[in-house]
């Protein structure tokens, strides 16, 4: 039986409206992202001077004096770099254990995953307050080490959740092959890593994004200083806090400096995600599809 024409037209209309809505949604998101980038560039670029990125702030920097934000750039890189490495070193074995050693129906695995989900949703300021409390208990002061530890704790759930997502879809036959060749469970790590590396790269990008943009946790644990830290026990400045303190200033020039810091922050994140994507493409060449 032939369909009546009106129904056919209705379906076309339906399709059209759906498409239109999707285009609008896409446009809003892209426009929003672009406007952020454009604002940061247009406001940050004029304030960008060589001095800004190559010098630590002078004594009256926040009052419009000399200096730059090198302390924050270096502090951020220290904290993010160290906590990403630490986070990876802790998360990968956990995910490996949950997926290779534990059975799919394991209660322990279920509880562990639930806990990481809960941790994932906890706001950074809570991590910061918790870290701060422990630091006070041990008599530690705000320091680079404190910042690294808290940021590591903050990004471990990000790592585990997103790597686990990939590892759970790991083809079981590959494990069977490895076993049949005489591999122990531990020895399958090599194969598992090869397969989930693209996932690990994505997770790393997400984690770095969360780590580098976080202001609340580091404010309580790493502190803020004008100097570049030379040891783990010294406080360290971070870029989001540099943005924060400058943006709070009543002086117009200093507020310009906030955009410069935001510009540097965006630039670092952008460079990392583009670099990450290139690395990801390289590593996924052996992946089984």
């Amino acid at each position, binding site marked *: 039986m032939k369909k009546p024409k009106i129904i056919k037209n209705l379906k076309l209309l339906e399709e059209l409206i759906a498409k239109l809505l999707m285009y609008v949604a896409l446009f809003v998101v892209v426009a929003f992202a672009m406007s952020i980038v454009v604002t940061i560039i247009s406001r940050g670029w004029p304030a960008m001077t060589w001095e800004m990125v190559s010098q630590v702030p002078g004594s009256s920097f926040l009052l419009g004096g000399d200096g730059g934000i090198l302390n924050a750039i270096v502090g951020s890189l220290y904290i993010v770099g160290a906590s990403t490495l630490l986070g990876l070193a802790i998360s990968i074995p956990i995910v490996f254990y949950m997926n290779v050693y534990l059975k799919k129906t394991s209660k322990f695995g279920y509880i562990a995953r639930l806990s990481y989900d809960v941790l994932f949703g906890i706001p950074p300021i809570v991590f910061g307050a918790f870290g701060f409390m422990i630091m006070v208990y041990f008599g530690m002061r705000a320091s680079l080490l404190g910042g690294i530890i808290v940021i590591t704790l903050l990004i471990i759930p990000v790592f585990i959740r997103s790597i686990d997502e990939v590892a759970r879809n790991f083809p079981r036959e590959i494990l*069977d092959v490895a076993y*049949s*060749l*005489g*591999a*122990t469970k531990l*020895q399958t790590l090599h194969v598992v890593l090869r397969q989930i590396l693209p996932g690990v790269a994505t997770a790393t990008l997400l984690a770095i994004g969360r780590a580098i943009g976080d202001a609340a946790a580091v404010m309580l644990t790493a502190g803020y200083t004008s100097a570049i830290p030379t040891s783990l026990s010294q406080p360290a400045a971070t870029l989001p806090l540099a943005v924060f303190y400058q943006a709070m200033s009543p002086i117009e020039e200093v507020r310009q400096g906030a955009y410069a810091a935001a510009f540097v922050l965006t630039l670092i994140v952008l460079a990392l995600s583009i670099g990450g994507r290139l690395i990801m493409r390289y590593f996924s060449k052996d992946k*089984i599809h």
Partner: protein
Amino acid sequence: MKKVFKMFRPDHKFARGDGNSYIKIENLNVSIANNHILKNVNIDIPDNKITCIIGPSGCGKTTLLKTLNLLIYAIDGVDISGKIDVNGTNIIGRDFDIEVHRRMMGLVWQKPVPLPMSIFENVAYGCRVNGTFHPRKLKMIVEHYLTAVGLWDEVKDRLRAPATSLSVGQQQRLCLARSLAVEPSFILADEATSALDPMSSKTIEELFVRLKENYSIVMVTHTLSQAQRIADNVIFMYMGQVIEAGSAEQIFKNPQHELTQNYISGAFS
């Protein structure tokens, strides 16, 4: 702890197919999640012969292979009883070195499963996990087994390319080379040619016939004509039971059991 140390074991000697390998299965019962899959299976698998297991889908052929390889332990809720005697050792029981046993049983899957690595690494992987790390030695092993499966000339210029860049037929031969590289005594093939085109499956069949000089081969197959072409012994299974076993000639020309007769004449499949 033993397993941890084994990782660092220096160059391990492989158990070669020495012409005296055999498998003797007695009263094997396997159930998975209270589902009785293999019922009282008794099978003899001699050396240097191709033993084909035929039977309709769901008759337990794959489970039997997985049990022989002990990959069955990776499945949840599995219960095994009976005896599987491999070269004089009963492999059913927990106090057994599973990795050494698995290496002895080279497994070839229905669908080729390359590891997420390069062609070279795929063959070398098994040697690495078993303690051979010397680069020159690995190179020799890889070349030897890729030649044995007739793949060397096709891939020698792109050993570093990902294994997935090969065609399915080539991948299956690569998987066979990978299994052979750890020097097993047995080759277990689970419908190894069913995913391949006729030309590739002919290549694999010829390979198996050549390999039976050094290995004892157990092959699960859906294609009766394939069993007729290459089998020395045939085992017919139905609903988890061995209905009939014997030499290929006897089973195909003069089957004793009614079910076997029906299956071979094509009354059901």
